[in-house]
């Protein structure tokens, strides 16, 4: 009787620990091969054949297609440079330069990866349509109400994510430091 109880307890613990850890790693992701530059994170290895099993699990669960390495690389940010979560009710400024790439796109998503509805049907910017200052830097303002210059509507949602995708770029698996890939800064400029 006691043996059965102990065996059952061990099995219950094993199931809870095992599936719990799998759920955590598949939803939150792991740090294997993660490239962090400022608030931006990328996993260039997910675009290659030697993607790690944890990334494969989270890709299969989320149902997205990772961007291939010969195509480009995707950087995701869910906080500003001071680790404050991006808030759609605040003004958030993305400014500076991007790493070398033939094209890039900056897109605003909710935390499940869906685009945020707005009357302008503006969900992001491409490198071609953005307005730059004379020295080549740019500034994009994320806000719920319209702003001058490059304005990206947040729809006033509480939390959102920004994705900067670089296409045809040398940034990838070999990139280690911010010097290889100067990413734009993200700052919360003010909340109402």
């Amino acid at each position: 009787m006691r043996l059965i109880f102990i065996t059952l307890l061990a099995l219950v613990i094993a199931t809870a620990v095992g599936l719990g850890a799998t759920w955590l790693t598949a939803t939150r992701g792991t740090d294997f091969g993660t490239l962090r530059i400022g608030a931006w994170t990328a996993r260039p290895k997910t675009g290659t054949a030697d993607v790690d099993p944890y990334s494969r699990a989270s890709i299969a669960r989320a149902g997205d297609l990772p961007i291939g390495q010969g195509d480009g690389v995707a950087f995701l940010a869910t906080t500003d440079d001071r680790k404050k979560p991006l808030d759609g009710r605040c003004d958030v400024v993305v400014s500076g330069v991007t790493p070398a790439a033939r094209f890039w796109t900056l897109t605003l998503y909710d935390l499940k990866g869906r685009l945020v509805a707005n009357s302008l049907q503006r969900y992001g910017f491409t490198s071609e349509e953005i307005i730059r200052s004379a020295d080549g830097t740019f500034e994009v303002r994320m806000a719920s109400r319209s702003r001058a210059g490059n304005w990206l509507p947040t729809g006033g949602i509480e939390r959102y994510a920004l994705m900067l995708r670089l296409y045809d770029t040398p940034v990838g698996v070999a990139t280690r430091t911010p010097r290889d890939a100067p990413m734009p800064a993200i700052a919360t400029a003010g909340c109402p």
Partner: protein
Amino acid sequence: MIRLVFTVIAGVLLGGVVHLVSVLALPRIASQDAYSRLSAITKLNAVTALPVADPGNTLMPYMDPAFATAICRYDLSGGPIKLAVPVSQAYTSVSFYTRSDVAYYAINDRSAGRKVIELNLMTEAQHADLPEDEDITAADRLIIDSPTSTGLIVLKALAAEPGLMPLAQASLAAASCKVQTDAPQAEAAPPPPAAKQTGPVPKR
């Protein structure tokens, strides 16, 4: 008491095994992965244009709204696939995914270096079966080895401004992805030319 501690330790160790097995099994058992989502709306061995990403379109998470996208879902069991994608104005790329959504190859218009990205996709076995001389003529066509016999080819064309989206979609609409039906003929073809070559020689 000691027995209880051992039980917990054994449970945690066994939990590690469960964790590893479930992480490795997740891509196989996931029913909502990209391939399953796309297989319902795409044709096999043909190019299907995807709707442009917008808030009402929850086909896949994190789709880039600046791109026109088309999918060729392939099955190589009927023979190698021939893919031709005309290059759009701004940027065009072709990415290859296995059945379990691993991106094993991607190429863009600049590395293809032509007006049309032309590729032959085949399994490693089909590549090994290619006749030797075929390999030489195929040198100017890129041959991609697929690790699995089924998978996805994702064609993307950038619309640098929203107004250019129809152009990007039109360039993808001209793409073709089909089973190479002339492959068996090519294998049957070499003997007749050899016979013809021996034919004219005695006449000279």
